[in-house]
């Protein structure tokens, strides 16, 4: 077929479709929604997976995180006087030192102690997570300082009342003015202490909070206050009184978390059994810790994502299939409606092939137009979600190509039958058709 006549067939196709704007629009709608859904769903999935992967990467692929976990109630070690019962469990300082001494491949061990407190500045009183840790926390977690400096060795040694706030908390607490060198009060159940703000930190990924605690409303607390571990123990102790559950519970946890850095991700896998062995030595089968291995989670997440993507493609294929059947249905109706036109064209010298091409192109126009609108719509939605709603949404090239490719394929496959049917009409019968 010559190029110029192809252009003309396309023009005629547009004219025919314009003749029934509503019908063409509705027919395209199936395609638009199908393609839109493919792109949007993939983009949302991609965004969520990206966030999760970043969060895990922030923990570090060569790291292992050991957390204190309250064991089953019958195994809890209770210690009581005067009606006050305390639950004692979790990681100890001795665990941290044993790991660094006995497990091969360990480069650094970072102990972390966390309790929920309130932080007060002037009239503002904010829920926060108080974290006692060592000066190398930022390097370990790949967090970066926004202002000031992080805690140092001297402060650790002297148990000084210095603290570092997360950016989000600083914004909430100081509402614009400079928090550096300001004084804040950290109030727990039993004591309140004054601290001096010496730095603002931004953790690598928002939401990658240490123990993923939720506040009353179920939101993840993103307000962290870092103080030297020694200060923490000296001022607040390891007794944690939790009021938020409704009933009073008192727990003694020496360390909330131990982070262990290995030389490489491979060494992590080799060292895991030894790590467990080192921890279990003093525990007599009482498991009050959990080990999080980011590299494993990352791999699992990637596998999960591949499964999700495949599933999404199946759903997309089904929706496009439904769209395609809708298009075929309309094209069959169109062929019937335009039987006389087909007869006239045949009488004017159109071959069967000419008629096939004409109807196939009309179907393709519907599909491509619908596909294009769907792609633009999906892209627009993703843009709005990403830039205006600030939810990570990533439009992948392959989803656009796949959606487009599928819509063309649907057009060809579902257009062919009506087109052939049109072409094979007997011209005499077609002409007689009123």
């Amino acid at each position, binding site marked *: 077929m010559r190029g110029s006549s192809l252009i003309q067939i396309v023009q*005629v196709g547009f004219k025919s479709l314009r003749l029934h704007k509503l019908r063409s629009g509705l027919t395209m709608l199936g395609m638009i929604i199908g393609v839109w859904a493919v792109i949007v769903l993939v983009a949302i999935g991609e965004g969520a997976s990206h966030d999760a992967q970043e969060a895990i990467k922030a923990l570090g692929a060569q790291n292992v995180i050991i957390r204190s976990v309250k064991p089953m109630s019958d195994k809890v070690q209770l210690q009581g006087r005067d009606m006050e019962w305390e639950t004692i469990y979790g990681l100890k300082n001795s665990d941290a030192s044993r790991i660094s001494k006995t497990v091969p491949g360990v480069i650094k061990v970072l102990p972390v102690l966390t309790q929920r407190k309130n932080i007060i500045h002037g009239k503002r009183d904010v829920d926060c997570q108080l974290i006692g840790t060592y000066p190398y926390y930022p390097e370990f977690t790949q967090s970066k300082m926004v202002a000031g400096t992080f805690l140092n060795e001297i402060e650790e040694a002297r148990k000084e009342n210095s603290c570092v706030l997360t950016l989000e908390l600083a914004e909430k607490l100081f509402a614009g003015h400079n928090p550096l060198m300001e004084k804040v009060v950290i109030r727990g159940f039993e004591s309140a202490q004054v601290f001096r703000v010496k730095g603002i930190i931004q953790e690598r990924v928002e939401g990658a909070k240490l123990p993923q605690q939720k506040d009353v409303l179920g939101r993840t607390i993103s307000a962290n206050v870092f103080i030297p571990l020694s200060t923490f123990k000296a001022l607040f102790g390891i007794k944690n009184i939790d009021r938020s559950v409704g009933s009073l519970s008192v727990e003694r946890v020496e360390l909330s978390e131990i982070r262990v850095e290995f030389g490489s991700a491979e060494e992590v896998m080799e060292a895991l059994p030894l790590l467990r062995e080192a921890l279990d030595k003093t525990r007599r089968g009482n498991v009050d810790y959990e080990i999080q291995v980011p590299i494993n989670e990352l791999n699992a997440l990637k596998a999960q994502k591949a499964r999700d993507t495949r599933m999404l493609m199946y759903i997309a294929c089904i929706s496009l299939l439904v769209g395609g059947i809708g298009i075929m249905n309309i094209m069959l109706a169109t062929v019937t409606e335009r039987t*006389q036109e087909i007869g006239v064209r045949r009488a004017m010298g*159109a*071959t069967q092939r000419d008629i096939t091409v004409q109807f196939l192109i009309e179907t393709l126009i519907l599909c491509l137009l619908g596909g294009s609108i769907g792609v633009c719509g999906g892209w627009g939605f993703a843009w709005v979600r990403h830039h205006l709603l600030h939810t990570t949404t990533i439009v992948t090239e392959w989803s656009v190509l796949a959606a487009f490719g599928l819509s063309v394929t649907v057009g060809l496959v579902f257009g062919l039958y009506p087109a052939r049917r049109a072409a094979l009409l007997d011209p005499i019968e077609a002409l007689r058709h009123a």
Partner: protein
Amino acid sequence: MAKHSIIQIKDLKKVYDLGAFKVQALKGLNFDIEEGSYTAIMGPSGSGKSTLLNILGCLDRPSSGAYILGDDDVAHMDDKELSGVRGSRIGFIFQSYNLIQQLNVVENIHVPLFYQGKDISDHYDHCVKLAEKVGLADRLDHRPMQLSGGQQQRVAVARSLVNEPLMLLADEPTGNLDSSTEQEILDILDELHGEGRTLVIVTHDDAVAERAERVIHLKDGLVDQDIRKGAAKAVAK
């Protein structure tokens, strides 16, 4: 007559196989049509008139016999070849005009050329000239819906001329028109005949047949009468 025959029909038969029985629609026709002649084909329904029209228009193939159009026997051509013949040698004029709704006047006139791979941009002037010829110079970009029946049939006439066919084949060209419009169309056909074009009109309307110089009457699939008027016409008047 020394005129060259552009159509030769020899022992043309058409049998419709309806499964249980066969219907012989044409039982062996023989006639020639000369270049520049004006022929009407008449006959009651069931006479084989429509069947003959379809075969003459290369829309259908005879069961046996020869149909020589120009220099070729088109009786046994395949669908693709017949499409080519329709597009290049025959100009159709239908009872119900049969214009394409989504195209305007000029585009409708161009349709037969389109299927010969000829671009409208190269033949636009030619199409416009034909529209002017049938008196539609001021309606070039109108759609069929915006035209009266008579105007639509004029477009159809212009369309039938665009490919310079060997023969204009009209099927009840005035069947849907009122009598004054009918006269206009018949006048245009007379004019075309005057220019030397070959016209074949299938009709059951005596008023239409009267304009022709020759009337072939069909009856039961055979030629019943073949009247060449010429001098006789003058006598009758």
